[in-house]
């Protein structure tokens, strides 16, 4: 049992939710408290087995098509009701135009704000991620074998990217391809994560004008870091925690 004082903090630490001072204080405490160290490893083991059990359940295709059909028919129905003669067309038209103007302005502002706050390379990476999801663009070399993917890059890029399969940790390697970030050709490694796709773009340190950081652009999360002589940018619709986990796996190559 961990001591009372830290019982909850241990979870904040485990979840990376303590502020820097709180985390440092907890780490100091860890050194002098074997109970807390043991409890922390136990929590990490539990988290690992939860991750390995692949408990996430994806929506069945029938649900997706049902929702799409219902949304389509819902708007269809409303069009029918507006055909009724007692509707004041003039008022309706004015209201519609006003609403359209307002929503367009709001949407534009929202997009600008979201995009404006994000660094250019991250926007480029998210765009590249979206392009890759189109049919047939995901991987030029499709293989779960790092020994097939790595040599594929020979002669295609002017560096040798580090390639590893993390299937054992829940991130199977799906393949690789070439992509372009900020005008620089980079190696794109494709990983799966509970049927989500993660693109990891890699280039030698300082060549692709990236900067370490993280954020979200239009619902896609990105994480950029530097390790072992390479700059990485990872993009996905999986969670930010997944990206962090993948980064730590890259750190161990």
């Amino acid at each position: 049992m961990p001591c009372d004082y830290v019982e909850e903090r241990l979870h904040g630490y485990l979840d990376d939710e303590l502020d820097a001072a709180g985390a440092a204080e907890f780490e100091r405490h860890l050194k002098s408290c074997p109970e807390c160290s043991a409890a922390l490893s136990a929590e990490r083991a539990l988290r690992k087995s939860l991750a390995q059990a692949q408990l996430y359940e994806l929506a069945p295709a029938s649900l997706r098509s049902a929702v799409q059909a219902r949304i389509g028919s819902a708007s269809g129905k409303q069009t029918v009701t507006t055909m009724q003669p007692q509707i004041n067309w003039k008022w309706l038209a004015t209201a519609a135009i006003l609403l359209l103007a307002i929503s367009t302005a709001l949407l534009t502002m929202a997009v600008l704000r979201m995009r404006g706050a994000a660094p250019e390379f991250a926007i480029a990476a998210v765009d590249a991620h979206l392009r890759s999801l189109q049919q047939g663009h995901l991987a030029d070399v499709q293989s779960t074998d790092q020994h097939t993917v790595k040599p594929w890059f020979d002669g295609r890029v002017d560096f040798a990217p580090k390639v590893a399969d993390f299937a054992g940790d829940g991130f199977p390697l799906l393949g690789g391809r070439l992509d372009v970030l900020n005008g620089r050709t980079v190696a794109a490694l494709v990983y799966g994560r509970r049927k989500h796709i993660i693109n990891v773009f890699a280039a030698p340190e300082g060549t692709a004008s990236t900067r370490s950081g993280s954020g979200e652009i239009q619902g896609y999360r990105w994480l950029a870091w530097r390790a072992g002589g390479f700059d990485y940018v990872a993009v996905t619709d999986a969670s930010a925690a997944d990206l962090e986990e993948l980064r730590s796996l890259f750190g161990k190559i």
Partner: protein
Amino acid sequence: MLEAQERERFEACVLPHLDAAFNLARWLLRDRRDAEDVAQEAMLRAYRFFHTYRTGDARAWLLQIVRNCCYDWLNKNRPADLQDELQEGSLPSKELSPEALALANQDRNRLVKALESLPPHFREFLVLRELEGCSYKEIAAITSRPIGSVMSGLARARQQLREALLAQEPARKEMGRAV
């Protein structure tokens, strides 16, 4: 035209989180078919109230609606589920054949059973944090709780999960002997 645009925006912002919606419903209701019905209802509710969504975290906004739909549904159809006690055997547990207990599935089955035995108010912490990867802030928004209570909630949920796993141990040993 307005409708078409709103629909497009809905499809761009909210629909990509359909998996998250289904996953949360599946774990709160402990049944895939019920989850499909309730997730569909939640998506339609989200579509109807899409005008109340401004900008920001669309996933958290949607999951909040999904969660509300799930609790409404449980309240109506399975109120016993909402009692905050461990729910051992409150659902007819399927008999597992030795084949089904093949090593590869064994851990998953154990975890599913343990997770499903937790009261929904604790189970949701683990689903949102460990499966969905939500931050404390997002969990607080989705579950309408103060952010300060998320850390203690997760601590208790993990403790309960561990106890539920331990409670399975004797059964497992017996099964091992029988095989």
